[in-house]
C-alpha cells in the first residue's frame, strides 16, 4: 500500500492510493492520513483508481476520517474506483456516508461545495 499526498488546487487536497487496502494496508497509512487531514479540517479527494482491493478495514478508515472531517467542517470525497472496488462501495452503500464520484473534477467540486 502506497500513499501520495498532494494538492488539487483551490483549497482542496489530493490523496492517491496504490495497492491493496486490506488490514495491513490500513495499518500503514491510517495514522499518517488522519494526521494530514483532520487537524486542519481539510477538504480532500481520494483517488482510488490504483487500488486492487478494498476491504472492510479500508471502508472503516474512510468512514472514520470522513466523519471526523465532517464534524470540523471539512470533507472527504472518494473517486475513480475500479470495478471490484466500486462493487464493495456499492454493496456497503458507503456513498450515503462518504461521497463517491466518478472522476477528479466532480470529486473536487463536491469537496469544495
Amino acid at each position, binding site marked *: 500500500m502506497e500513499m501520495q499526498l498532494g494538492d488539487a488546487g483551490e483549497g482542496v487536497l489530493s490523496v492517491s492510493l496504490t495497492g491493496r487496502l486490506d488490514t495491513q494496508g490500513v495499518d500503514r497509512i491510517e495514522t499518517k492520513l488522519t494526521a494530514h487531514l483532520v487537524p486542519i479540517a481539510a477538504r480532500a479527494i481520494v483517488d482510488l483508481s490504483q487500488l486492487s482491493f478494498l476491504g472492510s478495514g479500508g*471502508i472503516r478508515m474512510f468512514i*472514520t476520517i470522513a466523519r471526523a472531517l465532517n464534524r470540523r467542517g471539512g470533507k472527504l470525497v472518494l473517486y475513480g474506483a475500479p470495478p471490484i472496488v466500486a462493487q464493495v462501495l456499492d*454493496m456497503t452503500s458507503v456513498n450515503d456516508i462518504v461521497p463517491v464520484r466518478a472522476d477528479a473534477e466532480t470529486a473536487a467540486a463536491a469537496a469544495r461545495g
Partner: protein
Amino acid sequence: MRTMASATLEALRRTRASVRGLAELLLERPGPYARAFDDLILALIVLSVASIGVEAIPELPAGAVRALRWGEIVIVAVFSLEYLLRIIAAKKKLAFIFSFPGLVDLLAIAPFYIGGFDARWLRALRLLRLLRVLKLQTHVLEDTVAQRTRELADKNALLEKAQAQLQEELAVARALQLAILPGTFPAKAGCDGAARMIPATTMGGDFYDFIELPQGQIGLVMADVSGKGVPAAFFMAVARTNLRDLAPQHTNPGACLAATNEALCAENPMDLFVTVFYAVLEPQTGMVRYANGGHNPPYLRRADGAVEALDGRGGPILGVLPGATFPTYTLQLRSGDRVVLYTDGVTEAFNPANEAYGEPRLVNEVRVHGGEAPAALVERICESVASFSGSAPQSDDITLTVLSWNAP
C-alpha cells in the same frame, strides 16, 4: 596401609571440596557471605589506594610507617586469598589467570611478593599499586553487570507472566464469542439448516444467528463487524444482542434492520459498523422476506440447480447512519431449494498467489453440491475454501449458513 591411603585421599578430597565450597560461598553464590566479602574487598581496595597517598607524605613518624606496613601485609594477604579462591572457583583456570581482571588481581599483589619492602622496589610498588584502582573499577563494573542482569531477569519474568495471562483472557473471550453462536437450527417442519464459523487468528466480528420468532417464523442473520480484535468482538456481541431483542417486535426485516441501526448508531464511540443480511422465513409456506444492510448478497439455489443472488439494492452498513432505511424483498421458496448465506471471509480468502476465492467459485460449489443436505454443503464449501487457500494464512473469519426447505 590401604585404608590409611584411602582415608587420606578421602580427607584430601573433602578438603578440596570444602575449599571449593568456601570459594563459591564467598565469590559466587548470592547471599550475605558473598556480599560481606565483596564489601571487605572494596574497603581494602580503597584503603590500599589511599595509603599510597599517605606514604608519599614526607617524614612520617615511625609508628605511622609501621602501621602502614602492617596494613599493607593484611591487604596483600586478603587479596592473595581472594586471588587463590578465584582460581579455585574458576571453571577455566588459565582463562581466568590471563583475563584482564585476573591480571589486574595478580599485579595488585605481585610487586609485594617480588620486592617486599625493599627500597629499590618501593617506588615501583607504589605506582603499580595504583593499578588497584583498575581492580576497583572492574569490581564495581562486575557488580553493576550482575545487578542489571538480575533486574533484567526479574523484568522478563514479569512480562512473560503478564503475556501468559493476557493470552489466557483472550482465549476465554474467544470461547465466549463462539459460545454465543447457536449450534443447531431450530426444529421446524420442512426446514433444515447448518452453520459454521471458522475464526481467523485474531478475534474477528463475524456472526450468524437463528431466531425463533413469536408466530413460528425463523429469523436468519448473517453479519460481519468491521475490523478485528477486542473492539470488533465487543461490537459483535452488542449487535447480535440488539438484533435478537428487536426481532420479535419487528417481523418485517427492513424495519428490524432500521431499528437495530438506530440502536447501534446511538452507542458507537469507535465508529465501527456491521454489515447484516436478515431474512424471516415462514416454515409453513416457504415464504421468505429479507433485507440487506451492506452485506454480501446470499445465493438461492433452486432444486433444478439454478443459482441466483438475492441482490436487490439494500440499505447502508449499520451503525453509522442514523435514519437509514432498508427495503424489504419477498421470495417464495419451493421444495428442495437452498439458501446459502456467507461473509466475505469466504470470497476474500486468498491463496499464496494472492488470488481471491471469489464469488464464481462459491456459486460453482453451490450449483454442483447444493443438492446435498445443508450440513454436507457447508462442509463442502469449507473444504473447497481451505484447499484453495492452501498455505496462505486465514486473514478473516469464514462464516457460512445453509438453509433448505421442503413443503411440509
